[in-house]
């Protein structure tokens, strides 16, 4: 459904020196910098897939989403979405896609959500019966039926986001781009939105691309992730494989018997290459290189009064973070 091949995009950015002097200078002469936002990106997404697009700020996630949605045109490369060139913005294409931007309001601020949805019904030419049925279903699932007649600007951030979701899904798009849909929301609202997205995926089978800085979003929604670093794809594969491929350390945790403990020789046990994460009379946690996990565990068992020992993988979020930072 989504095919991108060797997509590159550059932006020309105006630079201005700080201070009044810089502002005055910029009045007469401007300096520009060409910023490569995407470098030869290739990507494909199938129906029913939710692909998590990850990357640090400025890695190119939003630029890629905007290109796939037809808002930006690529400097080079080929993009086909639902057999269309997104940049041509044919109505037939736009009727089948949807873009939700957590940081950008798309509904009309001064109007109640119900009025916005009525306009969207006309924009997408949704038959009245289907519109009524879907609106009821979406509003009820998200628990916002009683808020439909409230002005958008008077809703809370979470409620607004739910309305944005309804607006984006009323026409049952086959492709959904979710750009940080849970940003700034509290845990309950985040959970509600995540479970709603999963439910929508189950019932409608769209292709979805999700960008988010919240690992919980990624863990709960995406089997496959694409990690971008400085405009390049550095990983494209299953989330579960990230640990196998990139984890360099293991976490060894030992629950101790505080009555029998004498001294915790933490550095000695973890070795020079290890990092003590926690060291109390009850618990000793250490992060050690993968190949030293067994040796370290043995050391702990020999020297400490261990009640329970556990060797686990590093948190996937930390691994992804390290990949993003190129560590």
């Amino acid at each position, binding site marked *: 459904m989504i095919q991108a091949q060797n997509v590159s995009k550059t932006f020309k950015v105006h630079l201005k020196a700080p201070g009044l002097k810089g502002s005055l200078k910029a009045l007469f002469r401007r300096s520009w910098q060409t910023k490569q936002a995407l470098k030869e990106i290739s990507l494909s997404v199938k129906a029913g897939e939710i692909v998590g697009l990850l990357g640090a700020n400025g890695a190119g996630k939003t630029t890629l989403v905007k290109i796939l949605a037809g808002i930006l045109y690529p400097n080079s490369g080929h993009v086909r979405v639902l057999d269309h060139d997104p940049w041509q913005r044919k109505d037939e294409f736009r009727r089948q896609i949807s873009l939700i931007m957590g940081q*950008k309001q798309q509904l009309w601020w001064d109007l109640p959500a119900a009025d916005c949805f009525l306009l969207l019904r006309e924009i997408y030419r949704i038959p009245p019966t289907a519109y009524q049925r879907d609106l009821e279903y979406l509003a009820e699932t998200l628990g916002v039926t009683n808020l439909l007649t409230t002005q958008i600007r008077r809703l809370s951030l979470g409620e607004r986001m739910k309305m944005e979701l309804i607006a984006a899904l009323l026409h049952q798009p086959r492709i959904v781009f979710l750009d940080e849909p849970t940003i700034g929301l509290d845990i309950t609202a985040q959970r509600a939105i995540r479970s709603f997205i999963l439910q929508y995926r189950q019932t409608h089978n769209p292709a979805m691309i999700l960008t988010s800085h919240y690992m919980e979003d990624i863990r709960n929604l995406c089997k496959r992730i694409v990690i971008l670093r400085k405009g390049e794809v550095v990983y494209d594969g299953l989330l579960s494989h990230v640990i196998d491929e990139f984890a360099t350390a293991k976490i060894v945790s030992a629950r101790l018997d505080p009555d029998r403990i004498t001294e915790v020789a933490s550095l000695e046990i973890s070795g020079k290459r290890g990092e003590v994460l926690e060291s109390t009379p009850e618990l000793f946690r250490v992060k050690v290189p993968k190949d030293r996990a067994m040796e370290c565990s043995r050391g702990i068992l020999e020297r400490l009064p261990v009640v329970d020992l556990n060797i686990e993988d590093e948190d996937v979020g930390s691994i992804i973070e390290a990949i993003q930072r190129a560590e």
Partner: protein
Amino acid sequence: MRERIRFLFSVFTMELRRILSYRVDFWIQFLGSIAAQLGVAYFLWRAIFDQRDIERIGEFSFPGLMLYYLLAPLIGRTIRGAEMGSISEEIYEGTLTRYLIYPVSFFRYKFASHLAYTSLFLAQAGAAMLLFGIFFGFPDDFVFSPTSLFVAIVSCVLATYLYFALIASIESVAFWADNVWSLVVIVRFATGLFGGAMIPLSLFPSWAQELLVFMPFAYFISFPVRTVLGLNAPEAWIRGLLVLIGWSCAATLVLGVVWNRGKYRYTGVGI
């Protein structure tokens, strides 16, 4: 075609609902602007008429001039429609993105919402005229006729489109310059001065009048007002409508070029 009209009507009614949801602003716009414009005109021209001890200036008696000053801002506002800045703000703030995602034409959408303002101001203009007639009566130096009223309405429709296309072209410069506020203010000022909102164009030197006939500004205020008041001859109607059509075609062409080039520069805020 039917669906397109239904969509435009939806945008139109939605915009009306949006405007009417701020009633304080609605009444201030209606009463405040008329009172300000008419008040300044009254004191200025009363002083001129009294000091010079004259009955008429050009083709206007004092009550006639007041009626002109009532109609000029009302018709001007009707044609100008939505307040300036909405298109450039969409580009600058990145909210244009939603119109690029929705299967609609951005300018069709904007024109429909422009018409919502236009129709509202038209209703205000009608109400103000009626009140003026009831309280002061219409001066007898004007000849009102159904034909001139019809021509005035046609010219208003064309001028509404022309103003929209002109402003949309200028605001689309925001693709390059980000902030185009001062450009729009210049156009607005030029419309006020060369359109006849500040001083009736018939009081301008004759060489300026001859030049302004071929400029678009006169058609946003002076031309429809003079046509309603029966001050324009049939030859002026035909010439005026032709000039309007010419400028409308040119503005449409310019808008198309600016939009087609500008959209390549749009980033939707942030990269």
